[in-house]
């Protein structure tokens, strides 16, 4: 009897759908892996490692399953306001030049499309080189590559004001090599469209 009353009281506390007033729901992430969150509060610590599980923000207790409908009902406005996932591009260059490889040149329209899909885009364009040649030379070459790409995307319709150009020289190789090594995969510009 006392037990029944306890459960009833608990149900009232948790509200209609079995969740407390304040809670977190882990969602599946684009690309599969959904990570985990850890809630730490007055009542202890709870780890949610499975999507569509919820836990109260006071910590303690076991995560509960929440339906997509419930999440949509409570969080619909926030979900609808989510900005687009940033788009990333790597464009490759011919050795010791700011000339794109023919394959990479074909990707420029995709960059433009990603910019156009976003009402207020931010674009980072960062140049890189392989490990052949001195650092100062490569810093300049990487910057030249980034500026060239910036010019090229501006020429096809991207507003220059949204672009930030940078150079990392040979310091951030995609494929780590010993100094002095020629590596086509490191001769590149990375573009992030946010």
């Amino acid at each position, binding site marked *: 009897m006392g037990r029944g009353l306890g459960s009833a009281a608990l149900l009232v506390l948790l509200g209609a759908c079995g969740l407390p007033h304040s809670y977190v729901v882990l969602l599946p992430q684009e690309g599969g892996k959904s*990570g985990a969150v850890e809630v730490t509060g007055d009542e202890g610590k709870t780890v949610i490692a499975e999507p569509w599980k919820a836990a109260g923000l006071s910590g303690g207790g076991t995560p509960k399953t929440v339906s997509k409908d419930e999440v949509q009902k409570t969080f619909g406005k926030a979900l609808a306001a989510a900005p687009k996932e940033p788009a990333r591009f790597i464009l490759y260059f011919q050795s010791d030049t700011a000339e794109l490889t023919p394959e990479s040149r074909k990707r420029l329209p995709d960059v433009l499309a990603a910019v156009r899909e976003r009402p207020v885009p931010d674009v980072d364009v960062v140049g890189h080189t392989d490990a052949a040649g001195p650092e100062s030379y490569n810093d300049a070459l990487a910057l030249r590559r980034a500026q060239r790409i910036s010019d090229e995307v501006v020429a096809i319709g991207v507003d220059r004001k949204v672009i930030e150009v940078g150079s990392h020289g040979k310091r951030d190789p995609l494929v780590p090599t010993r100094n002095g090594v020629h590596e086509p995969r490191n001769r590149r510009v990375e573009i992030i469209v946010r």
Partner: protein
Amino acid sequence: MMRRLLKAISVLWLASVGIGAADEPSVIGRVKNTGGQVSITRQSATIPGTAGTEVFQNDVIQTGDDGSLGVTFKDGSRIAIGPKTRIVIDEYVFAPREEKLSFVTRITRGTLLYVSGTIAKLAPDKTSFVTPSGTIGVRGTKFVVKVGGNQS
């Protein structure tokens, strides 16, 4: 192949964006879209939040009864909030070259969606959401959180 490529890019990307001079307030993100009533309080001034508005550390972002807003941060992290929500970006540092990374957001009421970016990938223990009743630690992920009831 594509996934490997994307992973490689995101790993590289970590090193790609620094922040400005330490003492100068630097832009940490930009409002990408809004609906309804949205305001941003910076120091003592309050401005309406609209698509394109820049976001700085310590900004207080609030929505009205029908308000919503989405922000993309420099590291690719994204936050979106629903109606009757109040959040404060308590800490945002994205200087991977100097290994300085942190992202602490406070939500005092309402609903919020978070999708992790580079900071959470590189420094999961420096990424957290503070609520009136507990703290959410992030391990590279996407979640929604609601702070409701009588808490303020």
